[in-house]
């Protein structure tokens, strides 16, 4: 199941998505121990943030909804956790940062790239901090390009993956523009904007009123996004994320064009050992379809379509 991604070797293609469980070195390592091929740290910002008041999340039959509000201890505390992770674990670590403006993206990128991360993911797609940060940068080609350029300037040796949003109608065009601006990969997707209303209390459930939808309900949307991105970019690979809860889901995401597959909310339905479960199921899938090399799955659905 080993796979190379931007020159980094992953034991398997299943990676922990940002914001689920992995806040500290120890919690990230636990996801590796439970089967993940790599992990993404919860997104970090220049200053520490407490995030929104509760309720910040809820799990339902077919979807998960959150508006955590990007809480994090700030980049310096995050760097300590990253260094600690690399001391206790050899698996690949994907850093993740966000910021309120282009210049600040440059500063946090420079800081986090001084730490031993293998890849850097740039979160320009969180839908839950609109009041503070206005529209996510991932909704506009111009903003996505401006940020890609600045982070590439400061990331130096570290390859950069831009994390995009399904709320943008033109995710393919945005991915292509990021590639042109220097992005090394695309992570697709972050959560889709949504909300729940509590019928008993006749009020929005989240304190932030609106939030981001993840989990199974997001999967068809994520598949289409990955499909579009794969068609739109020239060479760069994709971390396909959104609604994956089984090995079959992971295979579908790879068939659509993902090289790595991000898994987050699935922990809610299948527990923290979901990573190992998905890897085992993906192996089973490959066996059933006489596939020896996991790379042969990537983008295969596109080929069958044109054939």
């Amino acid at each position: 199941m080993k796979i190379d991604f931007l020159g980094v070797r992953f034991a398997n293609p299943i990676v922990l998505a940002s914001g689920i469980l992995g806040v500290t070195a120890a919690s990230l390592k636990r996801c590796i121990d439970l089967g993940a091929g790599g992990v993404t740290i919860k997104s970090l910002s220049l200053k520490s943030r407490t995030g929104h008041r509760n309720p910040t999340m809820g799990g339902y039959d077919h979807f998960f909804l959150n508006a955590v509000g990007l809480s994090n201890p700030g980049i310096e505390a995050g760097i300590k956790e990253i260094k600690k992770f690399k001391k206790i674990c050899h698996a690949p670590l994907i850093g993740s940062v966000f910021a309120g403006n282009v210049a600040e993206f440059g500063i946090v990128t420079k800081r986090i790239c001084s730490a031993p991360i293998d890849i850097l993911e740039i979160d320009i797609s969180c839908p839950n901090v609109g009041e503070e940060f206005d529209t996510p940068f991932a909704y506009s080609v111009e903003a996505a390009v401006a940020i890609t350029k600045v982070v590439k300037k400061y990331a130096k040796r570290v390859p950069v993956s831009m994390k995009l949003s399904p709320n943008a109608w033109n995710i393919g065009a945005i991915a292509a523009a990021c590639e042109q601006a220097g992005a090394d990969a695309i992570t697709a997707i972050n959560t889709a904007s949504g909300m729940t209303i509590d019928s008993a209390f006749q009020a929005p459930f989240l304190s932030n009123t609106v939030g981001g939808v993840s989990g199974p309900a997001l999967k068809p949307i994520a598949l289409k996004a990955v499909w579009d991105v794969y068609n739109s970019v020239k060479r760069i690979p994709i971390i396909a994320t959104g609604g994956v809860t089984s090995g079959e889901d992971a295979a579908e995401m790879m068939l659509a064009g993902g090289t790595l597959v991000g898994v987050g909310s699935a922990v809610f339905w299948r527990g923290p050992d979901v990573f190992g479960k998905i890897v085992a199921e993906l192996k089973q899938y490959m066996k059933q379809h006489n596939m020896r090399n996991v790379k042969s799955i990537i983008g295969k659905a596109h080929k069958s379509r044109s054939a």
Partner: protein
Amino acid sequence: MKPRIATLLNIKPEADNVVSFMFRYSQLGSKPGQFVMLWLPGIDQKPFSIAADNGKTFSVAVFKIKDFTEALFKLKPGANIGVTGPFGNPYTWKPRSHVIAVGGGYGSAPLAYLVNAAKVDHCTYEVLIGARHKKLLLYPTRFPKHTYLATDDGSAGYHGYVTALLEQRVSVLSAAQRKKTVLYVCGPELMEYAAATVAKKYGLPSQISIERYIKCGFGICGQCCVDDTGEPMCTVGPVISGKHALRLSEFGQYHRNKAGEMIEY
């Protein structure tokens, strides 16, 4: 997991700034040591240990601190709140064993629930409750003849820490009693650390309720994960064995706040 409505039935003052709230709520299905998330729409949603649950009503004992607990204290009987849970790993006990419950702060609340359940299983028990001052003791008279008090200022019971009192009690147990004794602990972390150390010293098993900052309460956000195992305390805990607790590098040393910053004890 949609919140269900609980209706406030009864408010009972317990100690200085501590009140028991009893809610009508069918089939919570909780076990001692578990917690619920209480939601006041428009205000916040926070974790509270279950103090009693009879299938028709449940109770929590709340210390007034700031925004959320102040808002709870303003509720009148008949008010509706939202409840999710029960969450977390509970206390466990064997029939006919000897329970020593050691509580501080609101810790007496889940411990009272535990003692009442263990009594049904013919357990013997003693309850040790500590506080800075007698007016802060929660449930000092709930289990008459079985309760031992400790106050830092000597205003009631033993003059000193409840963990020193615990050591006194444990040291007088006969060998036969010791074999069937388990310590159950819930309170401020430094007290818990001292109690776990006493348990270790006397070779007694212990179960400790570890409190960490809770956002989700069901093992997704990672906010409550501890060093160095990385386990979320909302699902693996709050109740873990004293042995396990003493293996956690942060136990009795530090915890993380709402942002994830480390705060030393």
